[in-house]
């Protein structure tokens, strides 16, 4: 079971409304895990078209990140979002202020300020480990530990995410939404005193949707959503000689503990997804995904971990994926999804996977946003 999500929302009083999404998961050992995906309060009547939200919030970056798994059009998250923001997405304690501009068309400016630390702030002070490399599963990201955690000294040490979005009705049946987002914050890469290492992520997104003028329950419709992201990540200097357990990274030529210089890593990625609701309750989808990164200095093949010679970092290597799927909604309260992934990882080869997802919803109508 992927998860059981409990979502609660309602008015607190005339000034605030609140929302909470709590995820329950049962792991393979039968243990139940509880995770607070979101829990926030939002102002209802702030002046000047402002709105303030505070609590545990999903960061308003692009289109996919601020959505809950049950709202996803595919079983899994786009590669680039999983790579930059981790499997749970970018979310943390903090606050978001947004302003609806007085333009004739929809135009909204948002700024989210959050804690830059923790497991749901991958790419920042929550800096993760590399995944998927069998021989060296416990190797840290960019082959260096995240020991460079400077304390919070100012607002620049928080995770700052500005976003601007605008939308136009192209016709009676077509809507276009364009957005641009950025996320800035410190990261902990490198050794103590490894310098002011920071991460910058930029994104652009576009969503287009057509819904028939005589639709029934929202069908038929066609929608296209695409996002492109760039990450600039400062990897701090790190000397493996400082590690006292003795079995760290070594220089292939000399056998001595490796010394990594500070470097800036660039990663890119994009996805585009097409959804076609061809008859009531049926949606066919197709998603194209890709991620790639410029080869870092640490990937030049000069280092080894134990007997393993290390080349391209699998967590930054090129990868592309093609995912067709078919979803059937017997009613708006349940769905059955079938998805196939053609997954080509340059370091590991090609994978084929098939997914079957079943989901149900209890309670009131799920209010859905554009």
């Amino acid at each position: 079971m992927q998860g059981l999500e409990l979502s609660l929302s309602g008015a607190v009083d005339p000034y605030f409304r609140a929302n909470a999404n709590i995820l329950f998961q049962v792991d393979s050992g039968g243990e139940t895990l509880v995770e607070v995906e979101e829990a926030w309060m939002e102002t209802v009547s702030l002046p000047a078209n402002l709105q303030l939200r505070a609590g545990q919030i999903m960061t308003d970056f692009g289109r996919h990140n601020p959505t809950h798994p049950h709202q996803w059009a595919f079983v899994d998250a786009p590669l680039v979002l999983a790579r930059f923001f981790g499997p749970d997405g970018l979310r943390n304690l903090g606050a978001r202020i947004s302003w609806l501009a007085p333009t004739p068309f929809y135009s909204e400016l948002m700024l989210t300020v959050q804690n830059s630390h923790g497991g749901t702030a991958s790419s920042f002070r929550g800096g993760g480990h590399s995944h998927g490399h069998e021989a060296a599963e416990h190797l840290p990201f960019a082959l260096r530990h995240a020991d460079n955690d400077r304390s919070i000294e100012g607002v620049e040490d928080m995770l700052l995410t500005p976003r601007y979005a605008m939308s136009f009705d192209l016709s009676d049946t077509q809507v276009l939404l364009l957005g641009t987002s950025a996320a800035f914050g410190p990261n902990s890469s490198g050794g103590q005193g490894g310098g002011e290492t920071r991460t910058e992520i930029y994104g652009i997104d576009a969503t287009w949707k057509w819904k028939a003028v005589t639709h029934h329950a929202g069908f038929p419709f066609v929608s296209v959503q695409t996002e492109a992201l760039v990450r600039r990540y400062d990897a701090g200097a790190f000397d493996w000689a400082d590690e006292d357990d003795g079995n760290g990274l070594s220089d292939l030529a000399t056998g001595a503990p490796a010394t990594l210089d500070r470097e800036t890593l660039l990663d890119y990625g994009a996805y585009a997804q097409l959804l076609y609701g061809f008859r009531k309750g049926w949606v066919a989808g197709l998603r194209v995904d890709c991620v790639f990164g410029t080869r870092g200095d640490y990937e030049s093949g000069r280092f080894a971990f134990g007997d393993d010679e290390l080349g391209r970092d699998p967590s930054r290597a090129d990868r592309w994926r093609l995912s067709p799927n078919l979803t059937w909604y017997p009613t708006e309260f349940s769905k059955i999804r079938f998805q196939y992934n053609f997954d080509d990882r340059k370091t590991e080869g090609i994978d084929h996977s098939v997914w079957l997802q079943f989901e149900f919803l209890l309670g009131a109508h799920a209010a859905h946003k554009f």
Partner: protein
Amino acid sequence: MQRTNFKRMKATLRLLYVLPFLLTLNAASARLRVVATTPDIAALVQEVGGSEIDLVTLARPTEDPHAVEPKPSLMVKLNRADVLIHGGAELEDGWLTPLLQGARNAKIAPGAPGNIRANQGVPMLEIPSVLDRSAGDIHAAGNPHYLVDPVNAKLAAATITEALTRLDPGSASVFRANYTRFSAVLDAKLEQWRKLMEPARGRHAAAYHNSWVYFARRFGFTIDLFLEPKPGIPPSPGHLAEVVSKMKQEQARIILTDSYLDRRTAQTVASRAEAVVVEVSHFPGGIKGTEAGYIPLLDKLVGDIAAAFKTNQP
């Protein structure tokens, strides 16, 4: 140098004198900005508000009112509204709730004086005693398709008049005069429509979706067969076969089908049950020839439905 400064100051002062007048003028000429969720409510608002209001409608007449796309542009319309008039029976909840949350307009927030439920005072039918999703997509506030009963439309128009009068007292006399005229037309028309609907009295009909009970009750016929097994649940072949045999039993010879629903399914059932499909809509503009407003819509509905009952006698 000093002289010019003084001059400029005088000019500024003059502007300060004029400004309050300009603002009052602006306020006096500003018409109430009214947002109606669905075109049937909008038609009633138009009757009462006339040219004294600026009216915006969120849903289009040809689409399924349960599933309007919550486009960001609709959020902007709600942001700038003085009044929001909605059905009050959860029909629009799925899309209106997120739009209202994003609209950040305290004037029309739930519970605010500018948030008007058009069904205040309307006797709602089919209020469920038990709320259970296994019964399909039902509404706690009762069947939300109440405006096709002209008596309910009159009640809603009175509610709208009361709200507009309260929010724009300056135009109160116009709103009241418009209401008086509209309700007089409605009363006269209701007599006509009742006569025309005589052939329907005591008969049975089927409907695709359970959205015509108010109309049927007003004109004395019964709709208790629905192509949807439960509201919002698509028809299954087994259920349709059952509907066909019950239609024959009850001698129900017409199937009311909202224009956005699948006409082919209705047609198949009709041909098997020796019945006819009548395309209907709750909204002015939902079917051809009804664009001009509520009265033309009811004229068309009564005309078509009465004709179908007349020509398809058991």
